[in-house]
């Protein structure tokens, strides 16, 4: 069963008089429990595609089906709900709230939809999430007191608190050293294998993409390559 289905997706930006086509007809299927790396150089349309997949933006034309629902045409309020319930985000620069404890950072997404839960329930859920990413003893630290890897783990806990089927990681290791990067990527793999969470890694780094099972390469708004990670890496090296 496919989680994401894109049908002939176009995105065109209007910069004054000029129309800039960024996505030029993308069709894609991502199944449940896949771990996909989305690769491309800057300007390839990779970020735009991620924004549309993450329901942050709408396609100009084409269809985007998420869990059997056409979300490409939804209004911004409904897209916010979809983001809250079905999608988790992990960013390159972590995007944690400053001067706010790790626990409160993780609880934050619950304030928008989980109205049925009491403060204590949300707290318990957030604690569980932090334990799962191995930060149980750092719960009441502020982001400035945490290392980069720890901050990214807080961000992962936050992304997972609503138990979304889909997790986006936008250059999740861009600000981390190689050893921590490895840890974080292992965590993604574990999440993918143990909890069957579909993970989309957006990156330009073949090393990172290597951790995914499937790799989609984008160039000039089109998918140029879609296949198993190993061969893609090989081809990527060939191109470079």
């Amino acid at each position, binding site marked *: 069963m496919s989680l994401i289905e894109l049908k002939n997706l176009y995105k065109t930006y209007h910069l004054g008089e000029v129309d800039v086509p960024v996505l030029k007809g993308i069709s894609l299927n991502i199944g449940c429990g896949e771990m996909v790396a989305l690769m491309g150089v800057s300007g390839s349309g990779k970020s735009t595609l991620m924004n549309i997949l993450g329901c942050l933006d709408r396609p100009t034309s084409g269809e985007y089906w998420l869990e059997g629902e056409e979300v490409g045409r939804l209004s911004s309020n409904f897209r916010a709900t979809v983001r809250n319930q079905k999608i988790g985000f992990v960013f390159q620069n972590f995007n944690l709230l400053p001067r706010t404890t790790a626990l*409160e950072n993780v609880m934050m997404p619950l304030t928008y939809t989980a109205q049925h839960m009491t403060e204590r329930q949300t707290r318990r859920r957030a604690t569980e999430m932090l334990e799962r990413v191995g930060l149980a003893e750092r719960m009441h630290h502020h982001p400035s007191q945490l290392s980069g890897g720890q901050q990214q783990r807080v961000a992962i806990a936050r992304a997972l608190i609503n138990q979304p089927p889909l997790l986006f990681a936008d250059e999740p290791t861009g600000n981390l050293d190689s050893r921590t990067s490895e840890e974080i990527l292992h965590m993604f793999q574990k999440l993918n294998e143990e909890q069957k969470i579909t993970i989309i890694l957006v990156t330009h780094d073949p090393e990172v993409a290597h951790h995914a099972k499937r790799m989609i390469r984008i160039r000039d708004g089109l998918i140029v390559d879609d296949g198993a990670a190993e061969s893609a890496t090989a081809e990527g090296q060939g191109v470079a």
Partner: protein
Amino acid sequence: MMKLLRILLIALRALKRNPMRAGLTTLGIVIGVAAVIAMMEIGTGVSQEIQRTITDMGANALMILPGTAATGGVSFGAGSSVTLTPQDCDAILRECPAVRWAAPVVRARAQLVYGNKNYVPWQINGTTPDYLQAQNWADLAEGEPFTDKDVRNASKVCLIGQTIVRELFEGESPIGKELRIHNVAFKVVGVLPRKGANMMGFDQDDLVLAPWTTIKYRVTGSPLASANQSSAASGTSNTVNTLNQLYPLSQLQLYPVQSAVQQADTPLPVRFTNVDQVVVSAQSADQIQAAIRQVSDLLRERHHLRGDTSDDFSVRDMTQMVAVLSSTATLMTKLLLFVALISLIVGGVGIMNIMLVSVTERTREIGLRMAVGARARDILRQFLVEAVVLCLSGGIMGIAIGRGCSMLIRQFLHWPVEASWLAIMAAVAVSASVGIVFGFYPAWKAARLDPIEALRYE
């Protein structure tokens, strides 16, 4: 409820991240609300102080003057006819429920002599002890007031004002001293408290009070049969006014002037003793109108005036003056309140400024919140609640400070400052609405942000 609590919690957490700035932002509101509260409370205090000052002068007092006498088409002005009697005064006290005190007044103008000094006071009033109550003289500075028995016996006792003490006694205690009024010896039994000038600028302490019987029968020496004043006036005008030689009276003398023998042959009937005025004090300020009505009805009945006959007396009250003074105080309070409200608005603008800065500064946070599922209205609500929380807490602090200020004023200036619940509720409502009004624009700006742009903002 739960949801509201959580929104409040988020706002508090956000404000806690920058406590210094939150504190400084609310300062404008704190000052504004404190000013409003202090103004309201001090304003009501001043109003009451003015009311009290007016009551000091006998604000509830009514003056009943006899009517106008007229002879040959010539009016002699209010108070010239002799229609008021001490019995009228007793009847007013007995039969008018809205009247608290009533006292007859007999006026005199005479020279005081004590030792080798002499002085002519502004007023020498013959009256009853009730007069002290009606005119708020009740707390004597020294001595005791004269009594009803003194009035019955026409005792030669008097109370003197502070000015007279200063003019005649030069620091020694006047109690028990003997003072001559128009060559009649009076014993000073008490000294009146200081009141200062009244609203017309007359010195209220320049006063001698004595039993009206004594003044009437011993000092002014008016006979029990009062002569027709108008005939007396026209009778004397020939002899007194020396300009008559140059400008003969235009008014013709209709009757020949009576000789002493003729006057003795035709005595005027003795009917009553008259008094110059009656001072009445109503039960309270709002009973003044009722008192006027009751007194007028009673006097018309007693004077046998029927139907459309005009009154032979007039009743005067000070309500007009009270109204003018109170409205002045209210006007001042309103003006100050207006100024205070302006400072509240300035405080609101300060809040708006800081919220705008805060929105710009927290663009990334807004983007993140949107990415994890905040709708535009969630963001709007969050920033609005933050602004309202700032304003409300500023308002609460302002109430405390304003109350403190008015307490201090009560402590040091002894104004009767009163806590005004209305002011407090108004201050809370105003500061909350300032928060909503001035918090709306920044909140709306935050809610309108595009999540992609906001996330990328550096």
